């Protein structure tokens, strides 16, 4: 249940970004998370909705992009994703070596409503 901690941190990061660009509301977030973080997507979305309540992210769509553990083939120098704990290079079958990746926790982008100077929508927090 670390999903709630992650959700709260994500909402904080997104709200800080929204304030920086003068947004009144965030409508969509793209969040990249590595499988090593062992986050359940459904729980993550539930936790996000809870954490977002009353903030600039309230009602925002959370789009989750998953990344896999990565390995590097020592023979053909190709990077490949580890799925089902299969460490064999898909090209030559050699055992891959651990490469960076799979532990991301990144807010990639957000869709923000930015009020113009005339009829600016009401700010929520």
């Amino acid at each position, binding site marked *: 249940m670390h999903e709630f901690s992650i959700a709260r941190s994500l909402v904080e990061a997104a709200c800080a970004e929204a304030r920086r660009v003068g947004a009144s509301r965030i409508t969509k977030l793209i969040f990249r998370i590595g499988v090593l973080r062992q986050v359940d997507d459904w729980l993550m979305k539930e936790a996000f909705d809870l954490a977002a309540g009353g903030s600039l992210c309230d009602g925002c769509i959370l789009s989750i992009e998953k990344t896999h553990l990565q390995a590097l083939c020592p023979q053909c120098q190709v990077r490949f994703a580890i799925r089902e*704990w299969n460490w064999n290079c898909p090209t030559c079958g050699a055992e891959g070596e651990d490469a960076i990746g799979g532990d991301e926790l990144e*807010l990639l*982008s957000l869709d*923000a409503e930015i009020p113009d100077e005339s009829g600016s929508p009401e700010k929520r927090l």
Partner: protein
Amino acid sequence: MKVEVLKNVFEKNENAAGENRRRLSARGVTCINLLGGAGCGKTSILEAVLPALTKSLRVAVLEGDLATTRDAARIAELGVPVVQLLTEGGCHLNATLIEHGLDRLPLDEIDLVIIENVGNPICPANFDLGEHLRISVLSVTEGDDKPSKYPLLFKGVAAVLLTKCDLLPHTDFDIEQARQDIRRVNPHAQIFETDVKNGAGIEQLAQWILTQCQQPAPPSLCSKE
């Protein structure tokens, strides 16, 4: 309007962790984060290794738990200063909890702080606490498939302790399989086979920890600084 961000979501916790690490390093204190599932033997390992460590180091323990002060009481019996950090249902410690724990320790009179994390193979591994080293604990009764199921628990750690090795004859645990899977995500981890009932591996572990504490600037394996 679409805003490109690319921001680490755990920046706040990692900043707090970095602050803890600086605070400890400035006083020459080494900090170890001990992680593993519930019942893997974290407290028992501490009980076994602390008497050897306290011969030459001033050690304190931050004891993380969901509830009760039972583990802290076990450590206090050894005469080691201990602060209980109760998460009250929270499944992991975070850097801010550690900051408050450190406030309650006389850091100028301590060489080594060991944080015993909440028993859980998943959540605690996600949170940098400001430690210099991580040590993961895996008991042979949990099964040799755990490194492949919980790779983050083993990635980036300085050492892995295989515990309860006296029970190996009674389990199907394949030590070589476990070692291979640990090496896959962490080729540099020191792996110790231990058993607190007979004291196997405890002296080697104590020596290794002492060596880590003698490094002038302990390696920050978990740090992205």
